[in-house]
Every structure is written in structure tokens, then in C-alpha cells.
């Protein structure tokens, strides 16, 4: 640009040549101070925008949090760096950038406790691990019980979790109010609060930062993240094994393919002729105008379809239920968030006059047992990580970690071994309908 002096710092931050370990700035106090001197105009790109190569050892379809985390751990833990992550839109633009960011691990069955608590362990140190602030905030997630049935179900969850060493505790209505003062525990409500299950180390994290942090980390190891590259076909050889993917940017050869396409998994798996037990529904969320800090934790209510937290910007982040019909429109009916808002106003009367700023939808891939599918498929070389439905953000680090293992070794990690596609044939379902916490 004429008039603007070429700054040396800018050159230094510019990505290096392909194949070499990239020189990338680490975020630390020294970098911050240095960049402050040039008014923060010279922070370099966080990842490259490479042209696709002709061939990769592993091609991952979908640059959401799960796909990017998979690529990161493939490179970091398994030394598999000849990897491409293909994304039809922009990275993190799917459900990763649309969710309400709740992180918790108090699911019912041992298989799920293993999986979600593995992710919970990784969340603890994730910002340090990635040198990227994912803003994980362990402010506690409280799940409200409004009926005798809720009380019994949640207590069962608390007992099961404690036997498995997973944090979860039962609170009376008064204790719940003490933990979250805006909560209305009046006996006159249509669905009075009878108690709550609390996981203290649960909380929220910044969804975009998780995608960006993993993208930056994977790119550093040489993984190619290729945006605006839609996969349109999966090519298979005479032996049935995968050969590569047809994309909007040409054919790309691949020894192994990992499908991590959330709501679009059926569409992608159709390309390889594999039937999936998935249905894709709209799931909506909305945020209010920003206000001063006033809401200390995350509160979820399964029974009246509402959950809420306050972002660091001050907005109330509110999750609604799924629409009833299959749709890829990334939008849903207004009656769904309206119903949620009614519940929020009853639970937290102080928010009755708040204005809502934005409402949006994602496309969530729901399995019959509300548990994910992570593993092999009948097609040699084709692997899938899907079915996270309404609740996969919390699992992002753990999911990527075990799926990377599965792709690298060709066999599942013990943690994801139960989450096979084959379980719908054997009948060993992992039914988390009660714990999934959003009405489908």
C-alpha cells in the first residue's frame, strides 16, 4: 500500500513456506507490549490459506471445533501432519460458532461419563495448551428440577456420577437460589423449582476461540486448513476403500477420510453409500442486549425448555429447544424461542424487560440414543465423528483427542470404543435422552 512503510515485524509474522515448521508469534506479555507500539496493526495471520495439495494422509471433512481439534491432536500426538481440513464455508461457521457454549460432564452412563469427563479434563488446561485464551470459565452449571420425576431423574444422575468420580451434587431450592440469586423459587410458579443438580466445575467457554485456537495450533504443525472447499463426492476404489474426495476445488487424494460434518453428516456419508441413524433439526439460540454482570452461573431447565448464562460482553445467552421437523435451513419457528422466553421470564423475573438482540439457528445431527458416533464405518479408510446433536461443544477437546487416535491407529481409543455405528445393530445403545437436556 503506498504511503505505509513496510514493517519488519509484519514480515516476521508472515507465514513461512509450506513444509517448514512455521514461525509464529506466541501470545505473551512481551508480544502484547511489542504490538502495542504499532497500535496493534501488525499482528500476523493466525493460520495460512493454502492451496490444496494433490494428496494427504488424512482428509478431515468439516472445520468445526471437532474437526480442527482432531487435526491438532493428529499432528501433535501422533505425528500425522500431512493432513487437510476441508470446510465448505468458513472455519467455525457451523454449530461451533452458533452454540450457547455450555461445558459440563454430568451425563448418566459410564460410557458417556468417560467421554465427557475426558473433555472436561482437557478443558482445564486448554488455554495454556493452545496458547490461546478459550475463556473457559468454571462458573457452575445448575440443572433445575420442576417435577417429582425431574427430582428422581436428577438424583439418579447425581448418584451415578458420584460413583463414577464425576462431580455433581444435589441442591434444595433454597440452596439453588443462594447459588443463583436471580432465580425465582416461589411456590406459585406454574413449574416451581423443587431443587437442582449442580456441577461446579462446569461452565462456559468462548466457542469461536476454541475453533480459532485449534486452527492456529493445527496450522502450526503444518496442517492445511482449506476454507471455501465443499466436499461433493467420496471416491472409492475397486476394493471399496476410499481413494479421495471430489471437492469444489478439484479431486484430492486421501488415504483416510474423517467425516466431522455435524448436521450435514448424512449428506456426506451418502456420498460413500453409508446409511446413518441421524436426523438433522434446527436448534435455536438468542442473545439479549448487554448489561452489567448480574447472572453468576449457567442455569438449565430441561422441563420448561430454557437455559441461560451471561457472556463476558454482558449479553444473556439463551438456548431454546429444537424445532420438530428436519431442516437444513439454519433457522426455525419463532414460537420456539418465544416459549423459551416465557420460561426465562418466569424463572428470572428481573429480566422481564430485557430486549433481545439476535436470534439464530444451527443444524444439529441427532441420533436415536442422543449419544455421538465416533469410529469406523463399513467403508475401509472412512471414519466418522458425528451425532453430537444439541450438546457437542462441551466435548470438543475430548472428541478431537479420541478421534485423532482412531484415525491414526485405525482402531478406536478405549474411551470412544463404545460409541460405534454398529451399536444400532447390536442394540448396545447409550441412551442419554434425559441427560442431553434439550427437548427434541
Amino acid at each position, binding site marked *: 500500500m503506498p504511503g505505509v512503510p513496510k514493517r519488519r515485524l509484519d514480515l516476521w509474522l508472515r507465514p513461512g513456506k509450506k513444509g517448514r515448521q512455521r514461525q509464529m508469534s506466541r501470545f505473551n506479555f512481551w508480544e502484547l507490549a511489542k504490538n502495542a507500539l504499532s497500535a496493534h496493526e501488525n499482528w500476523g495471520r493466525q493460520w495460512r490459506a493454502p492451496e490444496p495439495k494433490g494428496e494427504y494422509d488424512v482428509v478431515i471433512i468439516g472445520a468445526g471445533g471437532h474437526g480442527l481439534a482432531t487435526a491438532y491432536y493428529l499432528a501433535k500426538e501422533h505425528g500425522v501432519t500431512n493432513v487437510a481440513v476441508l470446510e465448505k464455508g468458513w472455519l467455525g461457521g457451523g454449530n461451533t460458532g452458533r452454540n450457547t457454549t455450555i461445558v459440563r460432564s454430568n451425563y448418566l452412563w459410564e460410557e458417556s461419563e468417560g467421554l465427557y469427563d475426558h473433555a472436561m479434563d482437557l478443558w482445564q488446561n486448554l488455554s495454556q495448551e493452545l496458547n490461546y485464551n478459550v475463556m473457559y470459565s468454571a462458573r457452575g452449571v445448575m440443572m433445575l428440577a420442576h417435577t417429582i420425576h425431574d427430582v428422581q431423574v436428577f438424583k439418579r444422575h447425581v448418584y451415578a456420577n458420584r460413583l463414577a468420580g464425576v462431580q455433581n451434587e444435589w441442591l434444595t431450592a433454597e440452596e439453588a437460589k443462594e447459588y443463583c440469586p436471580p432465580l425465582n423459587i416461589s411456590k406459585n410458579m406454574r413449574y416451581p423449582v423443587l431443587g437442582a443438580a449442580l456441577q461446579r466445575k462446569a461452565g462456559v467457554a468462548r466457542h469461536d476461540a476454541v475453533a480459532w485456537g485449534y486452527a492456529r495450533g493445527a496450522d502450526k504443525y503444518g496442517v492445511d486448513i482449506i476454507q471455501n472447499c465443499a466436499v461433493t463426492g467420496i471416491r472409492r476404489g475397486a476394493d471399496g476403500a476410499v481413494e479421495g474426495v471430489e471437492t469444489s476445488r478439484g479431486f484430492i487424494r486421501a488415504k483416510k477420510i474423517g467425516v466431522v460434518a455435524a448436521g*450435514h453428516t*448424512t*449428506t456426506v456419508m451418502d456420498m460413500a453409500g453409508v*446409511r*446413518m*441413524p*441421524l*436426523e*438433522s433439526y434446527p436448534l435455536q439460540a438468542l442473545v439479549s442486549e448487554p448489561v452489567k454482570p448480574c447472572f453468576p452461573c449457567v442455569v438449565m431447565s430441561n422441563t420448561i425448555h430454557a437455559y441461560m448464562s451471561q457472556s463476558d460482553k454482558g449479553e444473556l445467552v439463551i438456548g431454546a429447544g429444537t424445532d*420438530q*421437523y*428436519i*431442516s*437444513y*435451513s439454519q433457522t426455525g*419457528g*419463532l*414460537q420456539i424461542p418465544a416459549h423459551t422466553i416465557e420460561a426465562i421470564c418466569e424463572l428470572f423475573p428481573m429480566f422481564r424487560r430485557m430486549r433481545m438482540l439476535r436470534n439464530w439457528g444451527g443444524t444439529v445431527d441427532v441420533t*436415536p440414543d442422543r449419544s455421538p458416533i465416533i469410529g469406523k464405518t463399513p467403508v475401509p479408510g472412512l471414519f466418522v465423528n458425528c451425532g453430537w446433536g444439541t450438546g457437542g461443544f462441551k466435548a470438543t477437546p475430548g472428541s478431537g483427542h479420541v478421534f485423532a487416535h482412531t484415525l491414526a491407529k485405525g482402531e478406536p481409543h478405549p474411551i470412544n470404543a463404545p460409541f460405534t455405528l454398529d451399536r*444400532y*445393530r*447390536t*442394540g448396545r445403545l447409550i441412551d442419554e435422552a434425559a441427560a442431553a437436556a434439550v427437548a427434541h
Partner: protein
Amino acid sequence: MLLISCPYCGVERPEIEFRHAGEAHIARPAEPSKLTDEEWAEYLYMRTNPKGLMAERWRHTHGCGRFFNAIRDTVSDKFVTVYKMGEAKPDLDQLLVEAAQ
């Protein structure tokens, strides 16, 4: 909110009167005891989940109470046609051709 025509009542009503009832034309096995595990999995769990035209069941719960079928585009959410139970599934390829005209 969707507006849905019930083929029995012959009127267009708001979605809250209806319940979605999943993919249409999934036939109950004629001889359940002869089914393999694969066939059971296919019947119980595998779904077409199409991005595009979909044949689906609806029930006019707060109206006549009857089940009917519909063809809807899952990208635009627009209904292409509705038809009564027992009527044959329309040819989706043909519908696509007609829609393009």
C-alpha cells in the same frame, strides 16, 4: 412458523396445530421374526434425512387428529404437496423437474 395444509380438513393452519411424525413410507416388517439384526437396525434407526425434498408424516393433532403425508423441501422448508395416508409416494425426481419449470 410453518403454515401447513391438512388434506383431510382442506385448510391451511399454523404449525402449532400439528405434530411432525418422522420420515414417511417406512414399512413395518411383514415378518418380524425373520429379520436379521441389520434389517432391524435399518427399520428402527437408519433414516434418509435428506437435504432437499423429503417425504414426511404429520399429524393434525389439534384439528382432525389424523395422520397424513407431505413432501417438503428441507432447505427452504416449503411444502411441495400433501397427500392422504395410503396414497402412493409422489415421484420426487418428477417433482424436482416440475419445480424447476
